[in-house]
């Protein structure tokens, strides 16, 4: 099965994929649905409130969309510290509780090396090099 567009992540209000009610809330990240995967591209500072809101709305959407996978694109995130790691792990865990799998894609090389040196683990999520590969892996899971 091939996907309509490879590589590029649709972003923002111009996206061909309707983000629906998630965009209406003032400060929330748009959740994009591709088939039965939910995609969030993290482009801003993940602070407390935003992260909790994201976790909550992701779980809602996993349920309503019958999603099998959640993909968080962090390719625009230049620094991931232990706190953000914890948020990502928490999202991974909650998504897993719902029966879906969470993929983090696009971790930059310097970020990955820094995480290793710090000794923090991203153990509640899967990782993939990019969106394409994450979709591929999720597709394998579904068959």
């Amino acid at each position: 099965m091939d996907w309509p567009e490879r590589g590029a992540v649709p972003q923002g209000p111009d996206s061909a994929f309707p983000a629906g009610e998630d965009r209406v809330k003032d400060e929330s990240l748009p959740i994009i649905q591709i088939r039965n995967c939910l995609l969030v591209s993290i482009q801003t500072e993940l602070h407390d409130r935003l992260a909790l809101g994201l976790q909550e709305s992701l779980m809602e959407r996993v349920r309503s969309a019958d999603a099998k996978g959640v993909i968080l694109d962090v390719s625009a995130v230049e620094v991931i510290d232990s706190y953000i790691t914890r948020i990502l792990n928490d999202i991974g865990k909650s998504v897993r509780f719902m029966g879906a799998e969470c993929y983090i894609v696009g971790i930059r090389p310097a970020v990955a090396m820094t995480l290793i040196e710090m000794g923090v683990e991203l153990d509640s999520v899967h990782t993939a090099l990019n969106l394409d590969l994450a979709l591929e892996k999720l597709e394998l899971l579904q068959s």
Partner: protein
Amino acid sequence: MKTVETEVGAILAGTISAITQRSIFNRLGGLAARPLQQLTTQDRLAIMAELESSVRLFARRNSAELIASCARVLGAAGEPAAGGDGADQGASEKRLAIDQEKDIATARLEAWSEAVRIGLSKFTSVKVATAVSELARNIVFYAGKGVVELRSLRDDRGPSLQIVASDKGPGIEPRKLEEIWAGTYKSQRGMGKGLVAVKKLVDDFHLDTGPGRGTTVTCLFRGER
């Protein structure tokens, strides 16, 4: 001829549209057309101040990298002409007030551009930004407010960056501190890993804390040997 506009424009090309670049250079006034060799230290500071805010505003990605590249182009070209003006060699210092969550992002961006500016590698600069992020977060979460200072030094061993994060918060009790280093401590927010992470990242680490004394973390990043 290499002018501010041609060189900075080359860096911004591809990330910031030509029209937006136009408006940025307009704001620089006469400085935009000035040849790089003729810039004074003051000119460079004025240009960087303007570029830092505009690039951060308009560049959707990699703004810190872009700002750092601009600083390199402007700084490197101006240094020989500046001659006796020692302001750029020796030490420089930046003081960042931390009192709300958004200051964390600002602090790590500043730390990153400072690290790149003084010539630390790209990888080390990300480590610097990560460490500052951890320290600033600790300040916001546990003390409410504090200060992060960035001191860049250059000696015959190369560039280094000292980070001092201090607050007048509750301080850390000795028993809690033991748990933190042992890795058994878990704060309400499930953190308690920030200090351990910073200690692993840096080349030199010093912690001064205690109940009623506040907390001061001093750490150092060295350039590649």
